């Protein structure tokens, strides 16, 4: 049987505005507990919320970047539930009318570009935080209370962990491009819940949707989806469908754990937020905000394809992060070879960043250093393999390629006179290989090239060695 996985995401993003959404308290992460609070974000009786215009601006930026329709009227509602980190007994959010309707993001699959549609984006306030002390007390920190959030709800249009991951990458990249959030999952400025079920492609039978919470990294999202896919398939195959559930990802156990059955669960008793009259958003203001947006990933991708002749896939990867795309363009200022630069970034540079789990701007590699390195390769001063070693060295030490090449004596030997002695010696020591080669075993040539490279400590120009070996064996 074949199963199709259906995934929808709900993503909370903290906006990096200067102040909180309803008061003048600073919007900062990591301050001492309860130092960034006032009567309004503590929900003290008689305090009133004043909707921060900057929050609207940031939210609208995001709405435009995600191709959504911005509403001309912002209305706020109250969503009720009791929890100790929720000082008013309700969260100010948007119920019926979100500020942004629809929208989409495109992700790059190997074979195609896939459009993931959004249901809506709405504005809301963040809650405080519970801290559990060693004495088993629950302490409350309200610094986060009233930090502005947008909640992005996708349609259930992703079909694998990989697609979800690509979507999140693109989402994070876009938010970074437009500078409305720090999008750091570890600081909670980006949080993601997954809605998932599977459908039997033959019978059309579906498992019941589960919502997965407590996902603290993209890796956890991927692992939780993979775990759930299997769990849902097992449930379907055993014909044991459950109720709608909310589950929690347990990182240590590597599995999801039931939190609560959803049926008959919380009713949020939405009511109009009477302390905040609806705000009109003019088309002019929306247009004005549009003009302040930087080039978005999608537009940059098209430009990279057109101006640098990159493939859709390569352009997609290079524009995924604003920093990476800027690194690419900066490198091109020193070496006018977009294909070479793209190949190296897509290959060894990204591999190294992934291994180290860092972003390009955190690495010791500068655009100038990469360009200098590639110039050495292009001009045959060093060979490709040496280039890779030098790149590693730059990542480790931050030294310039020239310095590394000079200090380690890595300059390629392209002088026949200099190489002749080594080649001769290798041939003398490997008589059998010469016989093998002459008997038609091509592999023997590769072996001999390897021996020369080894004897030259990797510095020999491999093409030249190849040519010389053929000539010198002919002579014997």
């Amino acid at each position, binding site marked *: 049987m074949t199963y199709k996985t259906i995934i929808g995401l709900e993503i909370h993003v903290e906006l990096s505005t200067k102040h909180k959404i309803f008061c003048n308290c600073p919007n900062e992460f990591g301050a001492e507990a309860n130092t960034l609070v006032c*009567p309004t974000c*503590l*929900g*003290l*009786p*008689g*305090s*009133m*919320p*004043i*909707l921060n215009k900057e929050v609207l601006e940031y939210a609208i930026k995001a709405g435009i970047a995600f191709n959504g329709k911005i509403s001309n009227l912002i209305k706020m509602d*109250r969503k*009720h539930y*009791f*929890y*100790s980190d929720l*000082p*008013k*007994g*309700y969260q100010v959010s948007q119920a019926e009318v979100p500020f942004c309707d629809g929208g989409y993001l495109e992700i790059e699959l190997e074979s195609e570009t896939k459009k993931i549609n959004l249901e809506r984006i709405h504005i809301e306030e963040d809650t405080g935080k519970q801290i559990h002390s060693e004495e088993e007390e*629950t302490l*409350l920190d*309200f610094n986060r209370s009233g930090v502005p959030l947008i909640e992005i709800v996708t349609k259930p249009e992703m079909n694998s962990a990989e697609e979800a991951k690509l979507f999140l990458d693109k989402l994070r990249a876009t938010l970074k491009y437009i500078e409305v959030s720090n999008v750091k999952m570890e600081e909670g400025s980006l949080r993601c819940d997954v809605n998932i079920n599977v459908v039997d492609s033959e019978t059309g039978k579906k498992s019941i949707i589960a919502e997965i919470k407590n996902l603290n990294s993209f890796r956890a999202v991927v692992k939780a989806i993979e775990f759930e896919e299997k769990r849902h398939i097992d449930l379907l195959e055993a014909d044991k469908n459950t109720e709608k559930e909310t589950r929690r990802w347990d990182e240590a156990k590597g599995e999801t754990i039931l939190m609560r059955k959803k049926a008959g669960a919380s*009713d949020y*008793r*939405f*009511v*109009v*937020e*009477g*302390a*905040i*009259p609806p705000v009109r958003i003019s088309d002019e203001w929306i247009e004005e905000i549009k003009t302040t947006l930087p080039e978005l990933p999608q537009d940059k991708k098209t430009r990279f394809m057109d101006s640098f002749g990159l493939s859709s896939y390569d352009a997609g990867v290079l524009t995924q992060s604003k920093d990476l795309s800027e690194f690419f363009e900066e490198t091109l200022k020193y070496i006018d070879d977009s294909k070479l630069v793209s190949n190296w970034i897509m290959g060894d540079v990204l591999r190294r960043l992934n291994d180290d789990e860092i972003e390009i701007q955190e690495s010791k590699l500068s655009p100038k250093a990469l360009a200098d390195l590639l110039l050495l390769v292009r001009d045959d001063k060093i060979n490709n393999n040496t280039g890779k070693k030098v790149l590693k060295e730059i990542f480790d030490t931050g030294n310039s390629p020239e310095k590394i090449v000079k200090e380690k004596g890595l300059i390629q030997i392209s002088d026949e006179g200099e190489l002749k002695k080594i080649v001769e010696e290798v041939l003398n020591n490997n008589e059998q290989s010469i016989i093998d080669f002459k008997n038609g075993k091509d592999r023997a040539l590769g072996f001999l090239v390897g021996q020369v490279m080894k004897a030259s400590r990797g510095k020999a120009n491999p093409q030249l060695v190849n040519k010389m070996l053929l000539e010198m064996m002919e002579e014997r």
Partner: protein
Amino acid sequence: MDITSLKAWEMKEKIIKKEISCKEVIQAHIKKIEEEDSEINAFISLNKEEALRKSEKIDEKIKKGEGIGLLSGLPIGIKDNIASKDLKTTCGSKMLDKYISPFNATVVEKIINNDGIIIGKTNMDEFALGDSTETSYFGPTKNPINKNVVPGGSSGGSAAAVAANMVALSLGTDTGGSVRQPASFCGIVGIKPSYGMISRYGVIPMADTLDHVGVFGRDVRDATLILDSLKGYDKKDSTSSKMSNSEAFSIVFEEDKGRNYLDGMKVAIPREYIDLVPADKKVQEQFDKAIKVFEKSGAKIEIVSIPHLKYAAEVYYIIMSCEVSSNMARYDGIAFGHRAEEYETLDELYINSRTEAFGKEAKTRILAGTYALTGSKNAELYQKAMKVRRLLKEDYDKVFASHDVVLSLSSKELPFELNSIKKTSIESYKLNMYSAPANLAGLCAMSIPIGEVDGLPVGMEITGDRFKDRTIIKAGIGYERAVL
């Protein structure tokens, strides 16, 4: 001369002319409170020493000939759901019986800045939920006119304090009639200005879309004096309006003294009031008499229809309860207010704290509101009520397109006896039908005394279009001049 029996504007004139000192005024009122309030119970907390200190400063200012604020040392009472830094703000509830706000409400700041003197915080129905001031955790307030009857509510303490000459002026709040009905019961003037006229910052909300700050005085001029000192846009309250930055209303008194404002005034009387909520016969007679006064003075009276008034009580009841249930959610025993001593879990902490500290009326309305917001009822009751509310507003728009004011009784009944057999909630909400529509539509409205029945006062309600507060003030003054 008993200073305390003077009207506020008379007191103000005498203070400015140095005929009496501000300190004498404050001393006289404190004495009055000491003599009478043990029985009337208009105050929850008092501010005697500070008030006296302040009065000396004001006398000093006057002596030096410095400029003096609009309220020039007048003694003022403030309803106890209005936040003040120096006195506790209890909302008449056990929930907040020790609560001291870290900030002043904008209206408190304005009184201070206008040289008013805050005498104390006045009694009220718990969280303003009630119409008799009997639901207060601090005991009921008695009506100074007849101590066997209630002063009305929920701003009963503020109304009684003015009626008993314990303060010259006072502040109340009005969500469905909580200023106008007690004004009517205590025989004084109460004004609930248009929605957005006075900042609600620091006013502990009952129902945000209906809540207003209102004022009490012994006549229209008194009420207007304090209204002028409070009105104005406040950037701390998004629901306050820049329309409120209009010219002072007291200008009306300086314009052409003795002018007959009723002449030519277009008056509407909704037939729905007569048909749907017939008043007590003797009370109705007082109203008819007052209408005659308008007519004689040249007003044009017309019976009109406001079709959606017939749903107003239900619409008010639903929306008010929904917003009340929401606003009461923050009283959970966590960060402030009463916390139960015994609990095992977080849920128990909530349940026990709220069970112990909320009174019966608060619980009733929290339950009603929670019901009307939950599941399918949200659309069937709450959202539908909001739609009818819009239709009611449109009805009023039509009436005000061709009329200046709408007249009705302030309450269809006389002040009732303390501890009288309790009406069910819905019956008592029906009584709000004369006043609650003004809250639903954000209109300005005033209650003005028009007579007595069996020694108990009767009030008339004058309602005007939103931000036509000047019109109802003119109507009120016009009436006062006509009957003088």
